């Protein structure tokens, strides 16, 4: 048997970390995109809402691209089976990401209510589709899909829409919405903040219930209960309860942190439930894809490990710097991203002359 100390397992963990990064960061981006029209009523308010994620959404999305690229490089068979097997679902994810990505750039270019509505809708739909379908896809990997000997998916698009997988989709969707509501409360001013808070009071408990239900179902779904699964599941449940409680108490910052931890542990629960498989074969587990039979050769994994060890810390440093640069709340300045804040009523002289 393989132990835990091998490069295949390390890369499984790294892919999990990339997905956590994606769900944590793009989670609130997707949430903001879906909540945009509910928390912002005037064009100025909507601009402020979009500007909370404007500088960072693209960098956040690269976590998904990196997760995809890392899966390709470290687990070619997993990449090939998953992406060809979930063909139409993945197409819908791409469709969403495309219309969402351009909507940021297109939205502000024309001052016409219909034009703005079209791209606000694109932002919402484009956030909704990936937020939902990522959960559906991952739940199917655990529940099992029908594979042939070569690892090719033999089922249809409709087989992917089973109750467990749909609940998985609802979970990621609600997590993104709840996370986005908390994020908006931290990054906006009244009246947006109050609207986000009102939505958060509903969304946070709903997300908590969905996650708890889902991790328990997952626990029942898998036969092998490793210590890792126990730990991630329990932390996920505790974090979700804390998120809902802190949100109800109005401790938004802490609720956001707890929600982030809950997202991380929910994703980790999926990965620990999967391990050592990467895709379960629903026909008697005969053709399960595992981290070992789907991995690249040793040399590739070594090269990739060295590269990741050098580059990931650098990426984290400059991405954290970005959040530091844009740490102030986004005010309702009307015009584009002026660095004015409600906390600082008199902006420094060199910043006061923005058009």
């Amino acid at each position, binding site marked *: 048997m393989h132990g835990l100390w091998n490069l295949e397992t390390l890369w499984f963990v790294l892919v999990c970390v990339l997905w956590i990064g994606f769900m944590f960061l793009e989670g609130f981006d997707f949430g903001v995109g879906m909540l945009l029209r509910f928390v912002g009523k005037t064009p100025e308010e909507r601009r402020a809402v979009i500007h909370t994620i*404007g500088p960072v959404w693209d960098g956040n999305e690269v976590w998904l691209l990196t997760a995809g690229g890392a899966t*390709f490089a470290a687990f*070619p068979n997993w990449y090939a089976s*998953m992406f060809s097997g979930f*063909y139409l679902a993945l197409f819908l994810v791409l469709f969403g990401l*495309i219309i969402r990505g351009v909507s940021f750039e297109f939205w502000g270019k024309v001052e016409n209510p219909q034009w703005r509505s079209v791209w606000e809708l694109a932002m919402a739909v484009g956030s909704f589709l990936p937020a939902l379908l990522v959960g559906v896809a991952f739940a199917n990997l655990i529940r099992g899909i029908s594979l042939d000997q070569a690892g090719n998916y033999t089922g249809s698009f409709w087989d992917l829409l089973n109750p467990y997988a749909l609940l998985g989709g609802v979970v990621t969707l609600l997590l993104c919405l709840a996370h986005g509501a908390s994020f908006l409360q931290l990054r906006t001013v009244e009246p947006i903040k109050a609207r986000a808070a009102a939505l958060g009071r509903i969304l946070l408990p709903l997300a908590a219930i969905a996650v708890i239900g889902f991790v328990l179902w997952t626990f029942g779904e898998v036969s092998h209960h490793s210590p890792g699964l126990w730990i991630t599941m329990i932390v996920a449940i505790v974090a979700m309860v804390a998120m809902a409680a802190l949100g109800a108490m109005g401790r938004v910052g802490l609720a956001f942190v707890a929600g982030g931890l809950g997202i991380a542990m929910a994703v980790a629960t999926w990965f620990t439930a999967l391990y050592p498989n990467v895709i379960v074969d629903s026909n008697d587990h005969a053709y399960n894809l595992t981290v070992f039979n789907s991995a690249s*050769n040793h040399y590739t994994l070594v090269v*990739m490990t060295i590269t990741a060890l050098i580059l990931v810390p650098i990426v984290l440093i400059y991405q954290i710097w970005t959040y530091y*640069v844009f740490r102030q709340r986004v005010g309702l300045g009307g015009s584009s991203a002026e*660095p004015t804040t409600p906390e600082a009523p008199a902006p420094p002289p060199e910043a006061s002359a923005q058009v």
Partner: protein
Amino acid sequence: MSSVVELSRWQFAITTVYHFLFVPISIGMAGIVAAFQTAWYRTRNPQWMRLTRFFGKIMLLSFAVGVVTGIVQEFQFGMNWAGYSRYVGSVFGAPLAVEALAAFFIESTFLGIWIFGYKRISEGWHLATIWLAAFGSALSAYFILAANSWMQHPVGYKVVNGRAEMTSFWKMLTNSTVFYAFPHTVIGAYANAAFIILGISAWYLIRNRDSEMFAKAAKAMVVVGVIATAATMLIGHFNGQLMTRQQPMKMAAAEALYNTSKPAGFSLFAVAPFAEHPSRTSFDITVPHTLSLLATNSWNGEVKGINQLQAADVAKYGPGNYEPIIGVTYWTFRLMVGAGTLMVLFLLWGLYLVWRRKIDRSKWFLKLALPAMALPTIAITTGWLFTELGRQPWVVYGLMLTKNGISPSITAFDVWVSIILFTVIYGVMGAVAVWLTVRIVKKGPDPEVDEAGKAVEPNLHVAY
């Protein structure tokens, strides 16, 4: 099955060609806009600031479409080409992963700061962010071209357990093919951006709007453009010589050279009998000795012909047809070289006008600068079609046939759905991006003075 292969090839061609209509403009404009901003940083001449902001906005539209269509690129290998992904993933996946990790993060993060960060960080740092974004976009080209070069000329791998496994990442990154493909592509991207900025500047010069400022931009772009275009063609020439050695069939197809010739003439215009695999041209005008000279540096050098190469490939790889579609290969090559030649000639004319200090008043040059904006796009698109179609029937030259790379689990229905919808959204998106660009151009750059005649404060916000 073959229809799934054909459809998937069409889908890959549509999504990738479309993606690469925008990418070179983004890569090139990022560097040129960074240079404009540097000029403003150093001289404080407000015209450079206004040029930065104006062309920065246009650049961002191009980036937006390039980025979202790039997501599809990362995933469609697995979606449509699972067989390929399994066979080459441990080699080919690595540069893709490193591209995301090393280049996409830099590009997207610092571009975000550049868009929103003016006055939040110091002017020097703000300038650094656009340079970093330009660097990131060029770096991403390196990794993706290393991946593509491996498909043209596989190195640093061995076949184990029925798949290709990497043995040297260094060999892959230092593949002789990528040493030519990278500068050819990235310098060509700068030529493309120079033509776009030149064309837009010409539009203003014709209308006498902001003439002083746009004359500055036009002059700079003629100089940048002529250097970049000439360098791209020169590197392309050496790239062609390397290709003659590494992929002789592609060079023979580019010239419709059916039989090995010594010396070989460069074909100007050829027609072949209408058949799936004609074995001769029926009509061919050639310049004697020229192909020998270009391809082998020798007046009487031997250039192998399609028929002989096909026979050799059958002996080496077994029965089958190893010819690309000769007509397409031949004509895309000619369009690429032809468009590039027109670009150089046009810019040499521009250089003459710059030297005589009358570029801003030369009506004909300025009028032609508008349609000339299409030339780099024609050269780049036909160049890629040539590179990729000329490699067929191989997906990895000499190692894997394209038809063996398909995903066994997808159906023609799946691919039809995605191909139609991709084409529709890409079409709408491209139309909107072009329409918005035209709108920005018609509106013009921000005024230098406000209504009261007071100088407008410097502003480099380009946020939506």
